[in-house]
């Protein structure tokens, strides 16, 4: 199955840019989380759901909410050497912005089983966008690697 994201060649030469999409904003967020994980590990299917983490995040706009979510994946990669796949995600509007509740599962990095790619350093704000497209939602992200 073709994943709901693709890496972009034409922007940010030294870094990794991608667009991710879905029928709903939640699906687009899940796709962006997978694209981030896929920047670090070649086959995201090799990441087994041995550990669970729960994220409750808030931001005043949808794109910054996505920044917060992806940043969590990058944080756990270093802090716990965890590769995490976001499985379930709910976005709510609040008076002042948005709130996200997500559940992620994954496991400790094992170079024997995980074909590793680039170490993502950070999620950048350069050209970051989340918006409606003709057939759903679309996000564009540039990761610093």
């Amino acid at each position, binding site marked *: 199955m073709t994943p709901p994201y693709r*890496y*972009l*060649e*034409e*922007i*940010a*030469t*030294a*870094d*990794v*840019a991608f667009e991710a999409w879905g029928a709903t904003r939640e699906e687009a967020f899940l796709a962006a989380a997978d694209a981030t994980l896929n920047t*670090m*590990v*070649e086959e995201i299917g090799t990441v087994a759901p041995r550990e669970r983490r729960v994220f409750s995040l808030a931001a005043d706009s949808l794109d*910054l909410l996505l920044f917060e979510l992806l*940043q969590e994946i*990058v*944080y756990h*990669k*270093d*802090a716990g*050497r965890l*590769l995490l796949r976001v499985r379930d995600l709910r976005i709510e509007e609040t008076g002042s912005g948005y709130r996200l509740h997500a559940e992620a599962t994954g496991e400790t*990095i094992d*170079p024997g089983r995980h*074909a*590793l*790619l*680039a*170490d993502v*350093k*950070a*999620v*950048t*704000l*350069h050209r*970051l966008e989340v918006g409606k497209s003709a057939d759903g939602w679309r996000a564009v992200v*540039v990761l*610093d*690697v």
Partner: protein
Amino acid sequence: MSVPKDIRRISDTVWEIPVSHKAGMLVPARVFASEKLLSEFDDGVFEQITNVATLPGIVGHACCMPDGHWGYGFPIGGLAAMDPECGVISPGGIGFDINCGMRLCLTNLTYGEVQPRLRTLVDRVAGRVPAGVGVEGTVRVSRDEFCQAVEQGARWAVKRGYGWMEDLERTEEEGCLRGADASRVSEKAVDRGYRQIGTLGSGNHYLEIQVARAENVFDPETARAFGIVLPDQVVVMFHCGSRGFGHQVATDYLRVFLAAMRGKYGIHVPDRELACAPFRSPEGQDYFAAMKCAVNMSFVNRQVILHRIREVFSEVFGKDPKDLGMRQVYDVSHNTAKIERHVLEGKPRELLVHRKGATRAFGPGMPGLPDIYRKTGQPVILGGSMETGSYLLAGVDTGDSTFFTTAHGSGRAMSRTAARKRYRGRQLQEQLEQRGIYVRTASWSGLAEEAGGAYKNVDDVVEATERAGLSRRVVRLLPIGNVKG
């Protein structure tokens, strides 16, 4: 091609984009490049360097080095000096990998002596200096000890036995930016960094065994002063940064600045990645103190890696590293903001100099250089691709047009995704081996991304810095062994 129509040629290698180019530009932007390099710049560079020219308090020119390319916020190869009293500090002008930099170590061994043991050396160094995604280092410290380390810099590592006292004077800022305050750093940053001392990272980070061939010594006298004295002398060069710690410090303050910039300070920037705050504001000072911790973490990291390299050479050759002549030449920083004294419009001034993917290159006699390099100017270590070679340059006294700053590498010409489509890691490794370059990698596709063809011609870049009066060639160094992060 995307070279702006209103760009004006100032000299052979200096090009200027006037303030009329874009609303909000406070100073002109200057690009340092040959005509050929200028025509090869990607679309983002001109957009980004003119965005930098809009930042409050910028003085002189917003500058882009000959190896410049499209980054986030600033271009890679970007330089901006701010008036510290009325200007801003911007994490996007420093980069997430704070104090990513290069270190060069000598040996008194020749190619003939090293070549038979090259595979052993590379394999053992690869085992001793962990590389790749989420790796942990071999130096175990508590969180509290880590906080002391990032306040003290390379001195902390030397005190614990990782290196020699003389390494410190051969490191930019003597391996420690004063004023680093770990209380300005988040728990999350410490979580990410405290187990990573002594690790290489990935992407364009590498450790390379190189040879200085007699025909590649451009200035024998300066080469001698830098310690290159033998025909076919072997040296070790490496490139890495502040790891997850620095990345998190930059991320944390990007968030802080984004909020404060809009509401509290009413500053508007063309790209959110240029989020900034007045340097003298509480947010600006907090970031500056936290950024210094990340600068110091990077010095600690490179100090420990140098120690590991010395250990491996010592084991393989059965001699003390001192008897192998393993003195450090220098350590340079790429991604920093520092207070420096420069002459602006004929007057000495204190300036906040942002360098992102650019190297400080102090000329002869400038304060801040150790006595051993006072006559020669600062050694500048410029890393090329693993195929084409690297350079040891020297700072020159004509570097004032860029506040004594020069290029940092050969500069990417092809995106990582495009390089992965064009090259294959395993095939590349075999081709390099046939050319006498033994490569170990943590990631095959990572290796493909770093193929020589994905970069600009390093000789063109270095020649442009020389013609523009930013630095001069001393020695060209050719790779023979590489550990790729």
